[in-house]
């Protein structure tokens, strides 16, 4: 381990610009002649548009134009797509309703975009938007998934009768039913996974620039995957061919999934820039973010878990209804299917699993991947069920888990996944020790003496990351491959640029990726720059989500480095008249092993570019590209323990301690990994205790600001206790599993299990607000 190489706690290269106000986010961009956009949005959950009259708005001060969906359609801009095809169990394809970037005849959720106003200032654009007169015919709305499936519910899309998008299943229903029928014990529970708004602190923004002379578009955007944005905008939305469209995602202030998708605003601002002849910038305000950023979760599930007489799980049966909102967002269909039900085996050896998933349209914001994406839903369901089962069976939660852990690898689950490595008991033991589980009874007595209720809960999670072999996801319906690309460019003086298709929006790639290169070549980390987020610089890439940048993105860099090193060794061998096989790279030098002969790295780089003395037939230059397609998912896993103290008078929950024990495989930068876990846990605590997207019956969003949607704040959280029990991942060259989502996956069930332990029954839904906890406590008496 070098001081700057793999495993070192290197402070971040990107920090100085963020700490001194020199970060460059999309809203910071200005270009000559730039104007401001504001969107006219539906104030109704469901309505017909009878007429749009922009006459008065167009006459307002500073207004350049007001454009609507009919004009957009006339110019051939396409509808938004969902990029993952799911078939129902009867073989029919998912029923996708049309999602027009600007609604033409019907609006389906509060916030649905109808027209764009372009004006000299953002204030003038906003004023004029208020003057656009729209004649609506209000229609009945439905916001809850279960209600949307009921007969007589308002119909949202003509393409999807009964609001049913698909009725999908995985696993073996007959084997599961048989096992349940002959079980010694069956635990039944209904699980609600609440709806959340991702809320990266940087609101979405986009700047569309059309260049008349070159017939070329530039799109600055808050994206986690600018290349996918360009691909989709070119291939499906007909904005421009790829060679005429440059997408730049500069510094991006957090994503958590919500910035994966290509939203209407990017497309419309590019189109509006051509229409108006001026660059057009739009920046979401926070209320717009609540109204339009894809939401996460929103499942209702019925669960049956069957046990034999030895408390071994014999079967799991799950029936889930997932709310996908008013339109199918880009990866919305994959989240409650292949990212969810394939993880329902958890850390346990379960011989038979069957999951049925119905997805439903409602008059709400589209729902898609949010930190964890399907895996938090699976983990919450399983771990709450395990807790309930342990109580029913009269065994400790740890004992029930240990009885059922998978202990040999590879392990094929009944739901597609093939786990490659892990040691679940190691994490469980480490977490219990760190939490002093054995001392809990004494602590509970002390709390009781003070009139408080104390509870402890655990959760053993597994997730699938590094998504994934392209052929595998393709066979499951994905519209894209999920490899990653890298280019390693060695400059003539030996400094290095690494171009990556991954995108950093807080993860610190500029540091960790540079650590990999510094460690391999022994050159200073300052001599390495990581370039990302610009389709003109990086050829192609799939972006950052699903904890894939380490396992997939860095593996691509490894492959490119292998090629660079191979060529550098050839040059060094030639320069030193040695055999290529004898060359080793150490401390910034290429050495002949076992001798004192060496050439510095920069000299080899220079030789490659002067090309005065290269091996015969070798091309000049030192630059290599690689694409890496993973051979499997990776499987981070761990055990989280929460301990809470509840004030029975107020229902307020105090998190007394939170312990995380994770297996992430090999770790590049422990400091950054710990930061990822802290942030993930905070979001999980938010889901468990604070956050909830709430609609009224007409589809009005009641939680559309930080006054109404409870974000976790510093004084809501404790400091966290972390540890790692790593088993290297055998499926990629670095042995990395990924760490970005674990915290958000593992923490909600640990907290709710702790609270239900304190209150003495498990009739509690997230978020466990003081009111709900107080009511649950009183219900128990």
């Amino acid at each position, binding site marked *: 381990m070098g001081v700057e190489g793999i495993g070192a706690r290197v*402070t*971040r290269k*990107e*920090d*100085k*610009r*963020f*700490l*001194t*106000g*020199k*970060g*460059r*986010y999309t*809203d*910071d961009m200005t270009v000559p002649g730039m104007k401001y956009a504001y969107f006219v949005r539906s104030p109704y959950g469901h309505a017909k548009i009878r007429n749009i009259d922009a006459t008065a708005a167009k006459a307002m001060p500073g207004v350049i134009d007001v454009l609507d969906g009919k004009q957009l359609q006339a110019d051939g801009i396409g509808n938004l797509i969902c990029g993952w095809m799911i078939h129902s169990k009867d073989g029919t394809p998912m029923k996708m309703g049309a999602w027009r970037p600007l609604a033409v005849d019907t609006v389906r959720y509060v916030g649905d975009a109808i027209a764009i106003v372009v004006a000299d*200032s953002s*204030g003038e654009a906003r004023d004029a938007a208020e003057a656009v007169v729209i004649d609506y015919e209000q229609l009945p709305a439905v916001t809850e998934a279960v209600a949307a499936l009921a007969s007589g519910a308002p119909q949202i899309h003509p393409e999807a009768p009964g609001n049913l998008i698909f009725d999908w299943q995985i696993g073996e229903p007959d084997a599961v039913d048989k096992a349940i029928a002959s079980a010694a014990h069956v635990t039944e529970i209904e699980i609600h996974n609440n709806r959340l708004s991702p*809320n*990266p*602190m*940087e*609101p979405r923004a986009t700047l569309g620039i059309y260049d008349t002379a070159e017939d070329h578009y530039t799109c600055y955007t808050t994206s986690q995957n600018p290349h996918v944005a360009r691909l989709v905008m070119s291939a499906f939305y007909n904005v421009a061919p790829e060679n005429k469209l440059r997408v730049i995602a500069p*510094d*991006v*202030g*957090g994503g*958590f999934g919500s910035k994966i998708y290509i939203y209407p605003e990017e497309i419309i601002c590019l189109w509006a820039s051509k229409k108006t002849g001026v660059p057009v910038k739009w*920046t979401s*305000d*926070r*209320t717009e973010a609540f109204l339009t950023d894809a939401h996460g979760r929103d499942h209702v599930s019925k669960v049956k878990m069957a046990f034999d007489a030895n408390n071994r799980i014999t079967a799991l049966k799950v029936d889930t209804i997932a709310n996908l909102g008013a339109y199918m967002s880009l990866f919305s269909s994959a989240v409650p299917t292949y990212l969810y039900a394939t993880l329902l085996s958890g850390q346990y050896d379960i011989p038979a699993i069957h999951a049925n998933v119905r997805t439903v349209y409602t008059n709400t914001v589209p729902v898609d991947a949010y930190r964890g994406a399907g895996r938090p839903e699976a983990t919450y369901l399983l771990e709450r069920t395990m807790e309930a089962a342990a109580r029913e069976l009269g065994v400790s939660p740890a004992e029930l888990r240990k009885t059922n852990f998978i202990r040999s690898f590879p392990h094929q689950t009944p739901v597609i996944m093939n786990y490659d490595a892990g040691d679940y008991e190691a994490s469980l033991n480490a977490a219990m020790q760190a939490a002093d589980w054995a001392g809990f009874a004494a602590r509970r007595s002390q709390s009781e003496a003070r009139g408080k209720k104390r509870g402890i809960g655990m959760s053993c999670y597994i997730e699938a990351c590094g998504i994934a072999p392209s052929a595998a996801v393709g066979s499951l319906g994905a519209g894209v491959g999920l490899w990653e690309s890298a280019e390693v460019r060695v400059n003539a003086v030996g400094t290095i640029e690494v171009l990556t298709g991954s995108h950093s*929006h*807080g*993860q*610190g790639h500029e540091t960790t990726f540079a650590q990999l290169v510094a460690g391999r070549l022994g050159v200073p980390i300052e001599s390495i720059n990581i370039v990302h987020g610009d389709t003109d610089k990086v050829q192609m890439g799939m972006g950052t989500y699903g904890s894939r940048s380490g396992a997939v993105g860095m593996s691509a860099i490894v492959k490119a480095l292998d090629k660079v090193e191979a060529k550098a060794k050839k040059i060094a061998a030639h320069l030193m008249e040695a055999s290529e096989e004898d060359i080793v790279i150490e401390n910034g030098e290429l050495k002949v092993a076992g001798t004192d002969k060496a050439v510095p790295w920069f000299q080899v780089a220079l030789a490659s570019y002067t090309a005065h003395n290269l091996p015969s037939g070798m091309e000049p230059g030192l630059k290599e590209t690689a694409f890496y397609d993973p051979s499997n998912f990776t499987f981070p896993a761990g055990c989280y323990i929460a301990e809470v103290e509840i004030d029975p008078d107020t229902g307020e929950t105090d998190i007394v301690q939170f312990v995380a024990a994770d297996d992430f495989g090999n770790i590049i930068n422990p*400091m*950054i990994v*710990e*930061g990822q876990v*802290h*942030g*993930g*846990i*905070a*979001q999980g605590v938010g889901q468990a205790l604070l956050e909830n997207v709430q609609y009224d019956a007409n589809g009005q969003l009641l939680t559309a*600001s*930080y*006054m109404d949607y409870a*974000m*976790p*704040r*510093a*004084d809501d*959280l404790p*400091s*966290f206790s972390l540890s790692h029990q790593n088993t290297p991942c055998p499926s990629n060259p670095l042995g990395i599993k990924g760490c970005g989502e674990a*915290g958000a996956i593992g923490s909600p069930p640990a907290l709710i299990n702790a609270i239900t332990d304190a209150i003495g029954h498990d009739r509690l839904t997230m978020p466990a607000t003081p009111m709900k906890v107080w009511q649950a406590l009183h219900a128990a008496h």
Partner: protein
Amino acid sequence: MTKVTLTVNGRTMSGECEDRTLLVHFIREKLGLTGTHVGCDTTQCGACVIHMDGHSVKSCSILAVQASGSTITTIEGLAGQGELHPVQAAFKEHHGLQCGFCTPGMVMTAVDLIGREGGKLTEETVRAGLEGNICRCTGYHNIVKAILAADAEMAGGRQAAE
């Protein structure tokens, strides 16, 4: 349009703006200092915190015309060119930032907090002091650590000076 004149980071700066222009938009759009951020519409998130006449202020909660004549420090002016204020240095050392968007407001709040309660901050008082600043990335763990470390270092510096 009204002319607003401010002393910003030690320099006198002027600009014309509408009466309704918020100070944060004036700083970002008229003065071109984009380190101060806007993360919400309801003065909840604190991404826009600056110092006005020596106190931390959410620059989204004050009109630019109200601020005319005042002395402002933004994140860009907290330390000399190329240098880091001890709080900025502590955020880097303790990984108190990830995406960087809330960071300028966090740092400006932390500097003010240490200025008011320096030398006697605890985890609890730091967490309470950050109530008006939202971070979605860090879970606050390392922000709290960084502020306590900066406080200790600055208190040490003050003691050494006395």
